[in-house]
């Protein structure tokens, strides 16, 4: 379709009294590239029963919207909403607060939407319009003009002739750009090595964190643990007995202390690898709870099969064989914490873990 030329536009007289309003609409559409090919009111004869029925339905829809909307506001304000407060009736009604809000608001919005859609489908005139696309490249001449403008811009800058200026600009701007980047990123960067040690290779069990003394194994509340506190075939989660040892500050330190049955303990001793030598104390073993795959606590201990299952990605570790992985995506055994019992009869860690705990990383050998 050809574009409108100026004389045609000037020929159209919008104030001509013989033109209907729809003629004006059509002309406006035509100027926007739209041709209204079919435009028929749904009810050419006004006031038919069918039309009145639709109007009634719409009225009902919007009435429901209003009712439900009001119900929402009333329920929001007046219905029991506060957990654990109030008398028995209040508490009985409480669980319905959120569902009531959802139901009333949902119905209100639904009837509103249904009403609007019904209005458009049943009352608005049937219409089919066609609009021209104007795809493809711009006018050839326009392309040439723009290209010339851009190329000229480059020429005007004179970089081709004045090489030195260009180079000087680049040489000066580059460090400035680096400066902007450095400030943005620089203060964020933090090295894994702090105080001379890589933080990924030490945990809260390091005696250095306890003034050189071996760290005690404690419950979550800080109380130390005796061997008699763990049932045979049982396990408990233990934390380093230092200030904040059970908090997330030492999120790499939770350890699983397991009291094996006699035969299982013997088997574990037979299977022990060099890295885990002398880590077992009688029938007790302690392994890092932090899975070596992705760091979730691996704590599903199956006391008869002696497997430790991690719930996140189903890695399974064989406790009686150095906690090496026997299934799933984990590729490294759980590090073993070397433990013994001190003079007062409480468990202590003789040293920190001998290998890095948790998920592997580039520098881990």
């Amino acid at each position: 379709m050809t574009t409108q030329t100026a004389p045609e536009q000037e020929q159209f007289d919008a104030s001509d009294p013989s033109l209907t309003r729809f003629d004006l609409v059509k002309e406006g559409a035509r100027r926007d590239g739209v041709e209204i090919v079919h435009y028929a009111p749904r009810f050419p004869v006004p006031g038919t029963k069918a039309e009145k029925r639709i109007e009634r339905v719409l009225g009902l829809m919007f009435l429901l919207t209003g009712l439900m909307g009001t119900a929402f506001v009333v329920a929001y304000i007046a219905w029991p909403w506060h957990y654990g407060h109030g008398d028995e009736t209040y508490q009985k009604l409480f669980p319905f607060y959120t569902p009531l809000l959802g139901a009333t608001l949902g119905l209100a919005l639904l009837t509103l939407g249904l009403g609007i859609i019904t209005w458009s489908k049943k009352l608005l005139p049937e219409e089919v319009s066609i609009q021209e696309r104007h795809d493809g490249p711009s006018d050839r001449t326009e392309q040439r003009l723009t290209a010339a403008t851009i190329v000229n811009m480059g020429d005007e800058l004179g970089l081709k002739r004045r090489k030195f200026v260009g180079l000087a600009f680049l040489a000066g701007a580059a460090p400035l750009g680096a400066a902007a980047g450095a400030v943005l990123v620089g203060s964020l960067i933090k090295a894994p090595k702090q105080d001379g040690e890589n933080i990924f290779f030490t945990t809260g069990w390091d005696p250095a964190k306890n003034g050189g003394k071996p760290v005690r194994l404690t419950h979550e509340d800080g109380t130390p643990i005796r061997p008699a506190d763990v049932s045979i075939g049982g396990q408990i989660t233990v934390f380093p007995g230092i200030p904040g040892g059970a908090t997330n500050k030492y999120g790499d330190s939770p350890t699983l202390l397991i009291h094996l049955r006699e035969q299982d303990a013997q088997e574990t001793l037979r299977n022990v690898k060099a890295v885990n030598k002398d880590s077992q104390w009688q029938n007790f073993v302690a392994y890092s709870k932090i899975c070596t795959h992705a760091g979730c606590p691996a704590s599903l201990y199956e006391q008869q099969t002696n497997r430790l299952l991690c719930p996140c990605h189903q890695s399974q570790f064989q406790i009686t064989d150095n906690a090496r992985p026997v299934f799933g995506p984990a590729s490294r055994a759980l590090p073993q914490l070397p433990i013994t019992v001190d003079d007062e009869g409480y468990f202590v860690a003789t040293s920190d873990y001998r290998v890095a705990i948790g998920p592997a990383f580039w520098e881990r050998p």
Partner: protein
Amino acid sequence: MTSEQSKRPLARLVPGGARAARSKLRRRLSAAVRLVAALTLVGGLYSAYAPGVGRAEETPVLSAQAQHGKQLYEYSCITCHGTNAQGVQDRGPSLIGVGSAAVEFQVNTGRMPLARQEAQAQRKQPQLSEQDAADIGAYIQELGGGPQLPSAASLDADVQKAQSDPKTLAHGGELYRVNCSSCHAFSTGGGALSSGKFAPTLQHSTNRDMYGAMLTGPQNMPVFGNNQLSPDDKAAIIAYVQNLNKNSQSDPGGWNIGRYGPVPEGLVIFLIGIAALVFATLWIAGKS
């Protein structure tokens, strides 16, 4: 021999023997009595001081309840757990030392008698009444000792007390999350273990069942003896679990869709959300 000598046969042995002679019968009688007395003395000394050789083959003296338990045991349990609860290789472990707590837990939840050997002992309808379970438990207890459950009444009272004290309830929650949720899930709905095993849901468990499970460590569940989790701690944990499951206020957000987390939530958004909205688009715009 003179007639006097025949009346006192041993008289000739006694120096100045005529006076010592008595009747033959009386002499034989007294010898017999002395023989019996000597034997009794030696026998009694022996049985008093000798070690109880062969005591293992003797059944100990059982109470009436345990006797009944023994009968039930020999009907329902002996094929896998053996005579005197010694266990049978590759079929059932020894029950010496497991205590009545383990028996009552396994039988009252229907896990024992096992339907078949499989990865997991399934909870099912109990085959024996609670009284019968207690009787077998008494038998096993008297056989080999072990942990015992508190009475239902006292445990329920403890749990009730724990539930009404917010501090204990919260403490039970913390204990649950550190010790239990990794297998039984935050929702108490249970979870999968390796190779076909699973930790069952706690949503229908009684107080006593939960106490018994913690105390005895059934199948692959670790043991949480009273040295590790005191009876008060256990009551707190049970109170927390029961509060989650019985208190209607625990799911204030509507239908909890099983509390399984993002999996049912994702299903709902597609099967309900997107499906309904696609039907809406079909209605609005149709297929032209």
